[in-house]
């Protein structure tokens, strides 16, 4: 008898719980609708957008932004920011190119070097922020400058070209697009997103990342090693910047020195449009995933409307503001 009563009690509270999860899901549903609307708008306005290889273009453009976004989601949930992911990604990519071209290493070695380098930069960011307590904005602004210079130093300011499709070492390109133009990269992106989601929601480090973003001091006083967990968020961001570097090399083949500044903003904008709060403690991988596609559909779609480039930036700015405003407005209403 007591048993049944308890069950019933849990059931009834379960429904409140469902309501809350529904609310979280709602946020993602809202931006998914935004994404679909934007897509539909472009499809309606431009026959060329409907036809052909637009999807492949969107996919191609989304890989590196996608990986950057997934990684930096972790950092933003801790309440931090990582401005270095763009330059660190290009620094790693060009270093990989040097390893391949100058040291004549096999492609896979170059890819490993890319991952190690980008993850290493993430570790340095993590140490600066979590251990030395530098404000994330300024710590990663510093490493942004450093990696930007470093890439040029390592490559001796030379453009590095990765092996072309069809060439003996061109196999790595098929990770992202087969010779038959199938966007395999989207599979990798989805797999990594699922992995990221599991890490964020179902591992200790993920739990602590949320906890730190919500209340760092309380988390510390609970006996959690906040330094390690906070640093891990930056390491994860670095790791994903490495994946972004590989995606970039596979998609665009050549890497110019000194580039990458500005990419971080694409990633961060996607994350925030996806509903992750810059104040920390709140965020989701699904949101980021949708946010990334909102940004890339805009980027790929606006040129199809034959808009000149400056109108594209102008409109993207508005969409970012609008998306975030809608999210905040909805949240405020929900809290009433």
């Amino acid at each position, binding site marked *: 008898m007591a048993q049944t009563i308890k069950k019933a009690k849990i059931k009834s509270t379960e429904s409140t719980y469902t309501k809350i999860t529904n609310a979280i899901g709602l946020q993602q549903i809202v931006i998914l609708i935004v994404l679909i609307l934007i897509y539909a708008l472009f499809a309606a306005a431009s026959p060329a*957008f409907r036809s052909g*290889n637009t999807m492949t273009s969107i996919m191609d453009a989304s890989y590196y932004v996608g990986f950057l976004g997934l990684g930096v989601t972790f950092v933003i949930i801790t309440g931090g920011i990582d401005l270095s992911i763009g330059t660190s990604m290009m620094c790693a990519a060009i270093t990989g190119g040097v390893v391949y071209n100058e040291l004549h290493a096999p492609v896979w070695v170059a890819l490993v070097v890319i991952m190690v380098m980008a993850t290493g930069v993430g570790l340095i960011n993590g140490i600066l922020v979590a251990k030395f307590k530098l404000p994330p904005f300024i710590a990663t602004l510093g490493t942004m400058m450093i990696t930007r210079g470093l890439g040029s130093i390592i490559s001796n300011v030379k453009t590095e070209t990765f092996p072309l499709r069809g060439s003996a070492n061109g196999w790595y390109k098929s990770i992202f697009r087969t010779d038959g*133009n199938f966007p395999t990269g989207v599979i990798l992106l989805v797999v990594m997103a699922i992995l990221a989601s599991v890490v964020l929601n179902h591992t200790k480090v993920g739990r602590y990342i949320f906890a730190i973003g919500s209340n760092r001091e309380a988390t510390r006083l609970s006996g959690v090693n906040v330094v390690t967990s906070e640093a891990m968020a930056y390491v994860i961001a670095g790791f994903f910047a490495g994946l972004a570097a590989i995606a970039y090399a596979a998609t*665009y083949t050549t890497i110019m020195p000194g580039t990458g500044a*500005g990419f971080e903003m694409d990633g961060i904008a996607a994350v925030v449009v996806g509903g992750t709060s810059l104040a920390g403690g709140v965020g989701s991988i699904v949101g980021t995933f949708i946010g990334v596609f909102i940004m890339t559909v805009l*980027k790929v779609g606006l040129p199809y409307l034959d808009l000149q480039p400056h109108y594209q*930036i102008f409109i993207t700015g508005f969409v970012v503001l609008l998306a975030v405003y809608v999210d905040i407005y909805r949240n405020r209403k929900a809290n009433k």
Partner: protein
Amino acid sequence: GKSASNKPTSTKDMRVEVIAKGFQHDFWKSVLKGSKQAADKHGVKLNFVGPKDETAVAEQLEMLNNAINKNPSAIVLAALDTKSEIDAIQNAKDKNVPVIGFDSGVPGAPKGAVKANAATDNYKAGGIVAQHLYDAIKTRLGKGQVRIGIVSQEVNSMSLSQRTGGFIDKMTKLLEADPNVGKGQVAVIGHDKYNNDVSTKNAKAIIELRVPAEVTDAAGKTEAAALLEKKDLIGIYGSNELGVKAIINANEAMGDRIGSTGDKVVTVGFDSGKLQQDAIRSGKFLGSITQDPIKIGYDAVDLAVKAAQGKKVKDVDTGVKWYNKDNIDDKDIQALLYE
């Protein structure tokens, strides 16, 4: 006094400050190579710098000011924007530091400040590209509306705007002279800087310029893809490395629209680089035009040393060359190409 220290008798004590327009493109690496060769030959010290991209006017001016403050024997300059640097150039002149223009030179500089130029005529070069493209597509004119695309990294810097402008002007002229098109039948669209008044509705030919929203490979590729999606596109031109790369990347993703024959979109480019050379060898590109970056660098520093020695110097046209599948491996072409 100052002017004495400017003019050492031996070239050993000379130092030449070179201020390029950029640093990251392979083109500038070759210019640097040529500059070094000349510096080594004369035994002068060389310092070679360039801003982060071709719109970084402030950065370049700061570099120029620094160079002048260092009191060098001569300055070699490829101005991003002459007007913003007029004061500084005047200052160099007052301090008796000779200035040599290179790449696209220092057009509009105060009289007498720039001793000589070692420059490419980008406008003319754009015209040469247009001529080659026209020759390859003229048989396809007159069967309905056709479109010729351009992907240009940006249109504010002197060299790129001239390459693009030279191409558009020449192509317009050639098409208007073509019996299958005719006067007033060529519409130029895509950018307010070049657009003309011809309506695209009735025009027999459209020249469409695409400028990426940001200087990134991704944005470039998107613009190129938007062009390649258009069914009436018969020719496309990439006006520098980024534009060329954009076309190659977009093409790869959309199943081979470009080529040099048949019903493919005939493609032409500017400069070299590994991807572009590869595309020319495989016939994806009809051909490209290359400057002579090593010669530009070499001649500029050579002129600078001579000017510093007080010798009289005059302009050198560093020239451009058209290269394609047939001549790419010729010795004189290979000497100009860089990867």
